[in-house]
């Protein structure tokens, strides 16, 4: 070779693990620290009851965040999953309790319907973005507003119905070897998504599309298909979240956030994804980070509540933490 100077290709395994471990270790470290702080401040922190509640709440937030994370990996956003979750909860409540035929059916029929509607809505988002080339922000913002409008008009602000006993039992009561079933489900789903993202062609193509959609297209990746899949998945996760939400609160609470329903769902899905290391640039991040971040998020809230902070305090702290984490991350990159 004409060029002078040699460089050896290091063992790729070493470097890959080094990079991943760093970020997740930091997050895990933060989580452990918070557990310790929690134990300090919260009277019954180390009781089984409290821990289970903590993990259950994290599971609900975390499940929805998975959908947002996957969308963000393609460089997009889904502003509609919050209102979709709430809207599906409303529909679900009605299907489970108020509809003449369906209320008699076994629990999994209305559940399936909810998942179908969620997937369909998500796919509408995906089609708008992939085919009509509408920017994700605009498409999902429009969808969010529309869903909010439809839900509000339909319910006239007053939600009826409730969840099915099976679901309630699943979310609130059932356990397997002492761990709440919701949490186990959440862990399984996270692991499945992790596997898909890391080891399947679709998963790697999601990262590729997020990194450079044009290059992906040139390389033969079916970019449109990936985008539709991703947003449909987000819709499915919204459906799952809505059922978990119903199981937990028994009946949807349409405290009408004037801008759109389900705003807190949306904001927490962002907060958790961002904290977990997924960026809006696309092609960076993953569901493991989201998983740990969901636990962190739940922990922070718990500590703040115990310290006597109401909603205002929680909001301020959450905002502060998001800002601090992001700034610190940027400063690390600059180095």
């Amino acid at each position, binding site marked *: *070779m004409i060029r002078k100077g040699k460089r050896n290709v290091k063992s790729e395994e070493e470097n890959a693990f080094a990079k991943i471990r760093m970020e997740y270790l930091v997050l895990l470290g933060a989580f452990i620290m918070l557990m310790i702080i929690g134990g300090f401040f919260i009277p019954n922190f180390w009781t089984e009851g409290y821990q289970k509640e903590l993990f259950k709440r994290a599971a609900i937030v975390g499940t929805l965040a998975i959908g947002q994370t996957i969308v963000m990996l393609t460089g997009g956003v889904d502003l509609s999953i919050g209102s979709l979750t709430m809207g599906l909860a409303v529909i679900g409540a009605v299907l489970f309790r108020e509809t003449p035929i369906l209320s008699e059916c076994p629990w999994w029929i209305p559940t399936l319907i909810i998942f179908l509607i969620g997937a369909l809505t998500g796919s509408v988002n995906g089609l708008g973005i992939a085919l009509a080339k509408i920017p994700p922000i605009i498409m999902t913002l429009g969808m969010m507003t529309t869903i909010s409008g439809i839900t509000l008009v339909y319910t006239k602000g007053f939600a009826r119905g409730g969840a099915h006993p099976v679901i309630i039992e699943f979310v609130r009561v059932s356990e397997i070897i002492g761990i709440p079933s919701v949490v186990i489900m959440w862990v399984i789903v996270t692991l499945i998504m992790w596997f898909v993202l890391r080891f399947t062609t679709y998963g*790697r193509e999601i990262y*590729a599309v997020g*990194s450079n959609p044009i290059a992906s*297209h040139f390389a033969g990746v079916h970019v449109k298909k990936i985008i539709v899949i991703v947003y449909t998945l987000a819709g499915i996760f919204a459906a799952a979240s809505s059922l978990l939400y119903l199981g937990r609160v028994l009946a949807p609470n349409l405290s009408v956030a004037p801008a759109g329903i389900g705003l807190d769902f949306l904001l927490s899905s962002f907060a958790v994804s961002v904290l977990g290391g997924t960026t809006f640039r696309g092609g960076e991040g993953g569901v493991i980070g989201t998983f740990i971040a969901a636990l962190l998020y739940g922990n922070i809230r718990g500590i703040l509540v115990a310290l006597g902070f109401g909603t205002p305090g929680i909001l301020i702290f959450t905002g502060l933490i998001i800002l601090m984490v992001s700034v610190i991350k940027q400063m690390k990159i600059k180095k």
Partner: protein
Amino acid sequence: MVEVYLSTEGIVKTFPGVKALDNVSIELKMGRITALVGENGAGKSTLVKIISGVYQSDKGRIFVRGKEVNYRNSKEALLEHKIACVHQENTLIPEMTVVENFFLEIENRFYKWGLLSYPAMKKELKSFLKDININNIDIDLKAKYLKPNEIKLIEFAKSLYYNPNLLILDEVTAPLAEDEVKLVFNHMEHLKNSGKAVLFISHRLAEILRISDEVIILREGKVIKSLTGKEIERDQIISMMIGVDIKSHEYFPPKATKVSDKKILEIRNLKGNGVDVSFEVFEGEILALAGLGGQGMSQVLRMIYGILPREYGEFYLNGKRVKIRNPRDAIRCGIIYVSENRELEELFPNLSVKENISIPLFDRCNKAGVIIGSKLSKYVKDIIKSFSIKAPSLDVPITQLSGGNKQKVIIGRYICKEPKVLLLANPTEGLDIATKIEVYKILRNLANRGIGVVVLLSELSEVVNLPDRVLIMHSGRIIKELKKNEITEENILRGYFKEL
């Protein structure tokens, strides 16, 4: 004693992991055209960006007319020290018109009652362009609709507008046609004769030899030598650039002695975007589409690959008609395209080297959608080896690789897909001599394996020495086909200018 306009002393600039400039001291004299040559990664563009004010050096000083200066951005360098620079990268804001782009930094000179006066700006620009003999550019167009040569000409005009004492041109001639290059050189000579200093960077040695009074050679961030007058000679320059003795005839691999007459790809009536062509690609040949800038060659390739919409086109693969609507269809037929816009259209910026190589390989390495890691790793390692891709490790971000290695990654990864036809747009643009030679070898090897290689080439020496067959295009049509001995510099140039 010739006066020095700008000199640098001990410039050091380090980027993460790379020392781009190591104690660089140069002198740019007035009334002289100084050329800066070196491979990619030698530090030319970095030095240019420091002199023009875009970067700040870590160490070292800059003197203008003997006095030390310290400008913080390129606007200061331009307005206070009359250092104008046409960068390698296009700096026109795509969504703004030519007029707005031209005066963006000094719009406050055109205020009338506190508001910008566009008529005044247009008038000024029109008369200026006329004065410097750059015509036929619609100044009301948004920059994104301009052709690459028009963009460069406007940027060149902009730098002249400020009446610079030092004009820096970084790879200006790359997108320009012969007559436009002549225009640029005329202005450079004019500046030189008016006693101004010109710094000229180009990969095209022919131009360097033609116009420079002094040649400064950079290698790995250090100034190797400065040649003047008779010392400026081709082989000398090249060997200093790459540090080894290389004679001209070794640049290009030998052409095919006999090309098969088996047609792999036939294109009939490809129409659209101002283009109307029909041609064939034979097994094992290197076919070049050549012409002046903007004559449609790039559009032809992109329309074949399905990334540029076309009005009509029939494609026959080994005699059978195929439908190509998008890259997926093309790849299925064994046709692969490599774009010249590496950063925008081929590379995945925040992914690792390994991932950049892997993405086109997924369909070879999976079972029911799950990637077989071991098979993929083997492919990747093979590619790294056979293309001699230099990277600190497979997991570093692709951005850490040099331009040449990036290009090797791009070309290399597609080979595993066993293409029948490769379409390459300007594969050696912006690469250093050493990598160019490697790429020529790679292309010839691919052709020898039976692949039909279709290339767009910009440098005349490449068009003469690399392909087995040349199709010259003009105004979107193929006007001449040159085979074997017909491929000479004279015939090609005649074709370019339509003297047939």
